């Protein structure tokens, strides 16, 4: 159980690093949103499940953390979709290869 927690937390931190690098280096608003939405959700879920596996805690506390996981898993893609729709309505132009 301990090793599973270590592996999950390490992978989640790796995904966090990927999210940050993608958010800094992608050229466009839509591609940045792609990096932020997916990597953020997956890495948060991984780190929280790793915390459940690693730290000894009661059943109620584990259920609360599972509630956080459930909420993030539903809420984060919804927020990403709403922001992308707002950017599309507001007229953010997609990046092309010959722009710049």
């Amino acid at each position: 159980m301990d090793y599973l927690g270590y592996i999950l937390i390490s992978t989640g931190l790796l995904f966090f690093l990927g999210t940050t690098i993608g958010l800094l280096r992608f050229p466009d608003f839509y591609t940045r949103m792609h990096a932020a939405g997916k990597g953020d959700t997956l890495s948060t879920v991984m780190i929280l499940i790793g915390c459940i596996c690693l730290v000894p805690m009661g059943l109620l506390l584990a259920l609360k953390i599972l509630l956080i996981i459930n909420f993030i898993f539903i809420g984060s893609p919804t927020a990403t979709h709403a922001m992308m729709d707002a950017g599309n309505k507001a007229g953010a132009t997609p990046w092309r290869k010959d722009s710049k």
Partner: protein
Amino acid sequence: MLLVLVRAVKGPTVIDRLVAINVIGTKSIVLLLFAGILFGQLEMFVDIALGYGLLNYIVSIAASRYYQHRNSLEPEHSPGENPVS
């Protein structure tokens, strides 16, 4: 987290800053859980993290809804009025 803050400060449009703020909010949930493990008071910090996640979701939905209705990304700078946001 600090590197994401760079994007939030520098970002070319408002929506970029919105994305960065959302990512920072999600990361701070994880940071609150780690703080709870370090301080040995996980019960309190889990409740705080749950409330923080809800607030982060509401904030991003509300801000994106606002920009959906405004139909422009640049802040208006007319001399007679107050600049919005």
